[in-house]
């Protein structure tokens, strides 16, 4: 009887009765997927009896992480990495926006410098990190500068693009209003570039953390990168994983912070509005 009724129903109404995955909220699906992967990992490690030196089960990693959260050591290292990342990022942001605006407003200068910018983009910058350690020592400075160098280029190129992508119509408005160069920059070019700059910042902040951590891998005893190397040398794989997870969370917080910046700085832009369903 039921099947007869279903046949008579409008197709969309019939579909509504069927339980579908697409009815679940997106975040719940993501969470379920994560639980599935972790569950499989746990089961496989136990079933295949894999050595904890190679691949510890998620439960062990989680335990290590929670335990180290209660120790000051992890937080001391975190603070160092956060400081390096932030300092490097701020340096990259200030210099990147300033030089980007300069090049965006001077097409001739940009053309002259373009081959150099492209070259620096192509060179694997991580390869220069040992040089920085050599020049600036094992302390904070070398890591801050590595972070700044990595974060600089995406911010630079996006700022150039943003300043250059002002529409002719908007330019005409400022011309008819007899605006000065500075007024045009302040009221038109800079706000026009903002969404681009923030996109550069999103890439830049992630690269800044990578820069700081890679710098720590290579030299010194401070920071999450140095901590990871120490755990690796003592074959404490579970704690190494815990440090990696901790780094990821720090990175995620930074990235989310830039997202908040986007909503505050460019509330007018489509990229800042919540997705429409």
């Amino acid at each position: 009887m039921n099947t007869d009724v279903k046949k008579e129903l409008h197709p969309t109404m019939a579909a509504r009765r069927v339980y579908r995955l697409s009815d679940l909220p997106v975040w719940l699906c993501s969470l379920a997927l994560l639980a599935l992967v972790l569950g499989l990992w746990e089961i496989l490690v136990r079933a295949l009896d894999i050595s904890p030196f190679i691949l510890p089960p998620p439960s062990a990693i989680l335990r290590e992480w929670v335990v180290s959260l209660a120790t000051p050591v992890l937080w001391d290292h975190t603070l160092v990495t956060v400081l390096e990342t932030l300092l490097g990022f701020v340096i990259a942001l200030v210099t990147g926006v300033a030089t980007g605006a300069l090049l965006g407003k001077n097409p001739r200068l940009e053309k002259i410098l373009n081959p150099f910018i492209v070259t620096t983009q192509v060179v694997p910058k991580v390869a220069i990190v040992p040089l920085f350690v050599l020049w600036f020592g094992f302390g904070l400075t070398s890591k801050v500068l590595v972070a700044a160098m990595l974060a600089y280029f995406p911010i630079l190129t996006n700022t150039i693009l943003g300043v250059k992508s002002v529409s002719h119509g908007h330019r005409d408005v400022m011309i008819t209003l007899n605006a000065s160069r500075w007024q045009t920059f302040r009221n038109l070019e800079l706000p026009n570039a903002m969404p681009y700059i923030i996109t550069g910042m999103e890439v830049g902040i992630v690269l800044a953390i990578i820069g700081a951590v890679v710098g720590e891998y290579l030299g010194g005893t401070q920071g999450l990168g140095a901590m990871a190397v120490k755990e690796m040398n003592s074959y404490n794989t579970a704690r190494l994983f815990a440090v990696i997870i901790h780094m990821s969370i720090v990175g995620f917080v930074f990235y989310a912070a830039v997202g908040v910046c986007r909503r505050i700085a460019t509330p007018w832009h489509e990229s800042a509005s919540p997705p429409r369903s």
Partner: protein
Amino acid sequence: MSTPAMPSQTNNGGIQLLSVGKHYDTQQGTVQALAKTDFSIEEGEFVVLLGPSGCGKTTLLRLIAGLLKPSMGTVTVGGHALWRDDRRDDAAVADLGVVFQDAELFPWFTIEENIALPLKLRGVDRAARKQRACELCKLVGISGFEQRYPRELSGGMRQRAAIARALSYDPAVLLMDEPFGALDAMTRDQMNVELQRIWIATAKTIVLVTHSISEAVFLADRILLLTSRPGRVDEVTPVDFPRPRVLGLQATDPFQHIVDRLRERLEHKHEH
């Protein structure tokens, strides 16, 4: 605005074009965008530049707006020559308000900030800017939308805001480049009535570019018909229906008569 001490400003909103022409030098040779043109617009007059696309009407408007420098001749606004060598005269530019086809509001500013932008550039303080923007919103009929962003408004309302921005610093002349070209026919009719009301209320000189014959006849005191290759003023048609004109005028015989005559003239010119 005019004072006895400055006799040259008695004709604040007047515009004179003396032997104005524009050509571009390209690799294929010289392209003439606008042939030598002479005419003058009275203060407070509503002049419409009418013609098909490519006839140089936008070129002509941009020449008056100071967005293009004429290859020859002189543009005078309110008694001031617009160009002095390669620099535009500040007094002449201050007399011009320009409304573009696509509103060209800045998306990062609210409607109020957009309208008050010219005042901000002139160093007017925040409170005075806010008050002026509020008055103008009332004038153009978008009160209550001051704090919205342009993308939250319809095309017609954005164009109203663009008109308010052009009026904010009280220029004597309003130059409008197909301001309602992107709007649907009904909104367009409504905006024409509104524009007439604003023009009567503010007593500005208006120069409006359009390719719609009925829009031209409805709005204009005088229609300058332009023809292409090279762009030049073909003839001047005075329109003397009394003001304020109502939309019903468009259905009357005298109105249709002028529309038909202009259309014939344009089609005739197009065949050659």
